[in-house]
């Protein structure tokens, strides 16, 4: 596999330009803000339950801090992931560098793998930085690491799917803004589509619920690994990457 040079090049481009620093700074700022708010609220709740023990029966740090934090982070990612993926193919098309990249002796799949894994590696780094929050909680009190790990697994799958969709949209256009906004629009629709389930009935209701991209996160943040969710993310990722490959290959016969 010749994906490694492409991977290294993309990493150099992320960290050689302000993209990596701007995205990680603001992502940490915003998720840190959410964490501190949720944590402060939780401490108030536990204070109250200390005064009135009848209210604090099922107060639980995983359930009341980490779970809402994961939900909030998945919404923040909805905004941030398009910024990571929008340039991957659109910029190469705009500047013409794709002409050189695709005439080097590498397969399209290797180019795609290099780019996807680079965006993925940056995303993993971003997530690793947020481990500070459960770490802080663990410093003050006893936490259950199991549900936290499954929560992170969920975020990985969710982010991987977002990235795959982003890279696909980027391969369709040579305009980075169109790529970024298009990705955002697709992700947003996949999120809000679940809301329609409330007013639907029968099969449609199940379908809409099943399609919602963030709903599948919920199980993971509660510590449940459901094959239904795994299958959802795996198929969505696979489909988006497969379509990207097709869109790259179409260049070879369509011109």
């Amino acid at each position: 596999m010749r994906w490694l040079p492409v991977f290294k090049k993309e990493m150099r481009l992320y960290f050689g330009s302000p993209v990596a620093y701007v995205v990680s700074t603001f992502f940490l700022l915003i998720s840190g803000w959410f964490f501190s708010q949720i944590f402060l609220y939780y401490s108030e709740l536990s204070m109250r339950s200390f005064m009135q023990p009848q209210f604090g029966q099922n107060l639980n740090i995983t359930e009341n801090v980490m779970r809402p934090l994961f939900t909030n982070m998945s919404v923040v990612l909805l905004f941030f992931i398009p910024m990571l993926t929008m340039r991957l193919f659109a910029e190469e098309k705009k500047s013409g560098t794709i002409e050189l990249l695709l005439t080097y002796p590498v397969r399209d799949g290797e180019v795609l793998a290099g780019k996807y894994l680079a965006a993925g590696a940056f995303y993993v780094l971003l997530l690793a930085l947020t481990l500070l929050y459960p770490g802080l909680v663990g410093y003050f009190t006893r936490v259950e690491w199991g549900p936290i790990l499954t929560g992170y697994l969920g975020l990985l799958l969710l982010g991987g799917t977002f990235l795959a969709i982003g890279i696909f949209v980027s391969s369709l256009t040579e305009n980075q803004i169109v790529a970024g906004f298009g990705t955002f629009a697709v992700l947003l629709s996949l999120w809000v589509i679940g809301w329609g389930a409330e007013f639907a009935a029968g099969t449609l209701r199940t379908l809409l619920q099943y399609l919602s991209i963030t709903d599948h996160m919920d199980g993971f943040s509660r510590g449940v690994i459901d094959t239904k969710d795994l299958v959802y993310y795996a198929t969505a990722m696979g489909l988006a990457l497969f379509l990207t490959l097709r869109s790259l290959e179409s260049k070879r016969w369509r011109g």
Partner: protein
Amino acid sequence: MIQVNQLTKRYGPVTAIQDVSFSVEKGQIVGFLGPNGAGKSTTMKILACFMPASSGSARVAGYDVFSQSLEVRRRIGYLPENAPLYADLTVASYLDFVAEIKGVSRGSRKARVAEVMERCFFADMQHRMIGKLSKGYRQRVGLAQALLGDPEVLILDEPTIGLDPKQITEIRSLIRSLAGQHTVILSTHILPEVSMVCDGVIIINRGRIVAQGTESELIGQMFPTARLQVRVAGDSEDVERALRSLPGVLSVERLQSRDGAAGFIVETPRDRDVRDELVQLVLSRGWRLRELHQVGMSLEEVFIRVVAGEEADTVAEEAS
């Protein structure tokens, strides 16, 4: 090394090239000549496996550009028009990436990168960001990336565009030095470049090949006669008559006289040299020879005649 057969490329209703056929022998440098929009870049993109032809076939180093694209791409170095490069990488890290992707082994990568930088004269720029380089330097980095991996075939789309005169000379002699081991196909619209660098010429106009061969072949085809310019001090009528009577002379054209010497253009068949006879004639008549030289037919004149001829043909077609 390169065989192109009946290649046609259409972009929707627009036909970029039509029935283009040519071949290039191993070790040759061939210049692709044509006005802007003639289809030079399209042909090169197809040869570099960037896009497919609508019909026809092309083989590079024995492999088909469509069905064996990866094999072809292992053997070519390509410089697209305007040398598109990653602006946010430094020169050295960019070339390192290219060397790696072309499969240059880890051990020799550094040395190979240093070597191409040396050959293309920008070793002093290696730590600069590509986006901050001037056009000339970017062009040379583009050429360097094409040379990396020592490909058998080089496809260079306007390699000297944007360079200053000194750099142009350097790059031309660099390309010239590639002849023999490498097969080079380069496009240009600078005519003297072709004469200086290339072994063969392909002239393309509006998607069709209108002439191909070596420079002297083309000149021979276009201009079957040789021409001499003579200036003789003497009675112009007599001189003209005498020149016409020389064996081998096809026609004599009178030029303006200068300093009391009449000027003539003497046309002869290309294989007939009448200079010695002409000098003897002038001396034996007691005239004085002021000037005698061959009027060269350049590629430029061939090009203008071929391209203009095409245009005239279509104007005639459209009128009829």
